[in-house]
C-alpha cells in the first residue's frame, strides 16, 4: 500500500513494507542519504530527523508510524533561519572531523534551539548526549550551538 509522506515540505509517496524504518526509506528508497546509519539500534543519533520539529531516531521509526507528521531531514535544514545559522556555525568553527555524525548532531541541535533558544550547558548536555561522535568533536559542537544561539561560551 502506498504511504504518503511529507519530507522537507514536499509530498512524497512510497510503496514499502510499513515496518521499514524511516531511515532506510530516506536513504535507499528516496536517495536522501544525508541521514546516516550508525547503529540501527537507537544508540548513536546519526539518523536523527525531525517529525513535526521533534527529534526522532529514524532507524527506530517505522514508516507507518510517521502518519501525517512533517519530516525534516538534514537536506531540508537550511529552509529555516535557525538551521542556516547552525550550518554556518558548523562550517566556520570547523566542527567536523570525519563528519559522519554531523547531520545527526545538527538535527539534534536544531531541535534543541527550537525548544530552548538560549540553552545553557546543562540543556546542551541533555539534548545532545544521545548523539555520539566517534571523532569526539564535542568541544566544537558545544561552541557551535552557542554561536548559533548567540549565547556566550
Amino acid at each position, binding site marked *: 500500500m502506498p504511504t504518503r509522506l511529507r519530507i522537507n515540505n514536499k509530498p512524497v509517496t512510497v510503496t514499502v513494507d510499513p515496518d521499514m524504518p524511516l531511515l532506510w526509506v530516506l536513504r535507499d528508497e528516496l536517495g536522501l542519504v544525508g541521514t546516516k546509519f550508525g547503529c540501527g539500534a537507537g544508540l548513536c543519533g546519526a539518523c536523527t530527523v525531525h517529525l513535526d520539529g521533534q527529534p526522532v531516531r529514524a532507524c527506530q521509526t517505522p514508516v507507518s508510524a510517521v502518519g501525517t507528521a512533517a519530516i525534516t531531514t538534514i537536506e531540508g535544514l537550511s529552509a529555516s533561519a535557525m538551521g542556516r545559522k547552525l550550518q554556518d556555525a558548523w562550517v566556520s568553527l570547523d566542527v567536523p*572531523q570525519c563528519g559522519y555524525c554531523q547531520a545527526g548532531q545538527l538535527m539534534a541541535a536544531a531541535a534543541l534551539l527550537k525548544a530552548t533558544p538560549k540553552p545553557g550547558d546543562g540543556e546542551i548536555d541533555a539534548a545532545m548526549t544521545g548523539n555520539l561522535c*566517534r571523532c569526539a568533536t564535542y568541544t566544537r559542537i558545544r561552541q557551535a550551538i552557542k554561536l548559533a544561539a548567540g549565547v556566550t561560551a
Partner: protein
Amino acid sequence: MTGFGPSRRSVLTAGAIAGGGLWIGLSPVNAGTEPASAAALNAFIRIAPDGIVTIIAQNPEIGQGVRTSIPMLIAEELDVDWGQVRIEPALADAKTYGRQVAGGSMATTLQYEPMRRVGAGARAMLVAAAAAGWGVPAAECSTAHGMVRHAGSGRSASYGSLASAAATLPPPDVAKLVLKAPHDFRLIGKPVPGVDNRRIAEGEPLFGIDTRLPGMKYAVFDKCPVPGGSVASADLAAVKARRGVAQAFVVPASGGEGALAAGVAIIADNWWTANQARPHLATKWTLPAGPRQTTAGDNAEAARLAAAAPQRLLVDSGDSKAALAAAVKTVKASYSYPFLAHAPLEPMNCTARVTGDKVEIWAPTQSPEAGRKLVAKVLGVPPANITIHMLRCGGGFGRRLTNEYMVEAAWIARAAGVPVKLVWSREDDMTQGNLRPGGWHNLEAGLAADGSITAWTNHFISYGGPQDFARAAGIDETQFPARFVPNFRLSASVMPLAVPTGYLRAPENNAFGFVMQSFIDELAHAVGADPLAFRQHLLGAPRRFGKDSLDFTGYDSGRARTVLDKAAAMAGWGRKLPDRQGLGIAFHFSHLGYFATVVEAAVATDGAVTVKKLWVAGDVGRQIVNPSGALNQVQGGVLDALGSSLGQAITLEDGAIAQRNFGDYPLLRLADAPPVEVAFVLSDNPPTGLGEPAYPATPPALANAIFAATGVRLRSLPLDTAALKA
C-alpha cells in the same frame, strides 16, 4: 621506518589540458613515459583559462583533514587565494600519486615539502610565460592572489590567461625551486575550515556509504562469528522467497591473509530488507578446528606465562639483576589492557560494479592500493582493470587499512551480476573487526637514593607465533624508558591468537603510554618524589638518539622535556586541590610527535570519575599547517583516549567477540567531554603528523590523576571505577 625526507628522485611533469590550460604533476624519475592526456587527468594542479584552480587531494580523507591541509601546501607556493581553489579527490593511482595511505600520521611528514614544490613549480611556469610575453626578466615578476605582476611596466596577468602559454614551457627542475620563507606564508599556519564542511552540514552525498549507482542492489554478508568458520548450511530458499529479496548465495572463503571470508550474501532492493532476511538463513557454521579463544582463558594463560621464564629476550642492557639487588628500593607491578574495536561511526561498506573483467569500486578506504591487490588476487583480474574511487571515510582509526569489505563487495557484485552496495551492520562491524590486541606487562624497577631509576625490567605478554608477534602486538626495543635507564631488560612471551588484529590510532603506543607512564608515576610516589620532578630527572639533560628527527626509533629528550614542562605550566601543576580531586601527568613520543597531558579528575565517593579538564602540549615540528584542523585532531585524539580508558573493552567468549553495538561498547558522550586546552610547541624539526601522537599520554595522565585523588592505583584498562569507592 626511517628516512622520510623529501624525495630527490622526482621530476615535475606538465602539459596542456585539452581545451586550454595547464596541468602539473610530480613523478618519480623512473615512472616511465605516460601519454600527457592521461597524466592531465591525474595531475596535482589544473589551471583553466577561466582562472579556476583545481587541486587534487591525493590522500584518503578519514577525518584527519588532509583533503584540506595538503592542498593548502600547494596553494601556498602557487600564490593563489584559497577562495580561488577547488579541491577534487584523486583516484587511487600509485603511479601518479605515490603513497595514498591514511596511516601512521605520515601525510604531513611526507608531503610538506614535495607538495610545496609542486605549487612552486606551477608558479614558476606561469611567471616564465608572463615574462616571455612581456619581454622582461622573470626575476622582475612577482605573484599574488593568482596574478603575475611586473612592477617596472605596471603589467599584470591572471594565471588563467597565462595557463595555456605556460603549458608549452618545459617544467622547471624541482630541486632548484626556491620555496617561500615561513614569514611569507599567507595560508600555511592560518586556520582553514575543512573543504567539505558545507557539504557535510547540508547532508550532501559524500561518504562511501552514500554511493548510489543505476541498477544498484543492496547487500548484507553474513559471516561466521568465529573467524575462519565456513558455511555448513543456510536456508537460501526461505530467504529468496521473501518480498524484496533478489538473490541469496554462499560465498566460499578464498584463503589467505585478509582475503575473503566465507559467508552468505543476501541481495535485496534495499538494505533493510536484506538485513531483515538474515535471521531466516538460519546459517549453520562449521567452526575452525582448535581451541576457541576466550578472554578468561587468555588472562589465565598470561598469568601462567608471567610466572614462567620469558620466551624471548628483546633488550638486555647493563645488568638489571645486579642493579635490582643493589637498589635502595624496588617496585613490582603488573599492567594490562584489553582488545579494542575501532568502531568508526560509518560501518564498513563498499559499492562495486563488475563488467567483464573490469571492476569499479567506490570505497571508504585508508589504503586503496592494498585493496586493489587483494581484489585482483581474489577475483583473478589484472590490477590495472580495477578503478578505485576513494570516498570520504566516516572515521578510520586504522580500521580501513584492511580492505576485506572491498573484496566482499567486488566478489558479491560479480556473482550477483548487478552493481552492489554492501553495508555491514553495526553488529557486523563490532564483531568482525581487526582488534587492537590486549596485552600484559610485568614490570619491576630498582631505585637509587636520589630517586634515579637504576633498573627496569619488563616481561611483556602478548600474542604471536614462535617467531613473531601478531599484527600490532609487538613492542619496539626503543620504547621509553629504554636508553634512559642504565640497566634495562625487555623480554616477551606470546600465546596464540585466533582473531585478527590490526592497527588502531597510535598502534601499540596507545597501550604502552598507559603502562610506562603509570609505572613511572608509581616509582615517583615510591620515593616520595613529585611526579613532574621525577620525570624531569628521568629525562635528564637534553640529548638525542637516532638518525634524525624523522627516525621512528629516535628520541629527543629535550623535546619531551619541553612539552612536559609546558603542559605542567598550563595546568598549574603543584596547586592544592580539594579532597578526592587530583592532577595527573604523563608524556609520550610516538609517530614522530612529542606530547604531554595533564588531567584534572574528581572521584566521587561512589567511585564515579569526572574529568574536569585536560591540558595538552605537543611538539610536531616547526610548523602547524592548519591550526584549526590540528587543534581538532588533538582534542579528538585526547578525548578518544579518555573514552576508551573509561569504558571500552572487547572480550572473547567461545572464540567470538561478545560486544555487539554501542550499548556494550560505549563511546564518550558530549556531557562527559571536558575542555581540552592545547598548546603547540614549535621546534626546529620537520613538520610531522597529528592523527595519532596526542593519544598515548592521556590514559596514564588520567590513571595518575585518579591515584592523586584517591591513592588507588588502577593498573588495568578500562579503568575499574568500582575500585574507587570511598
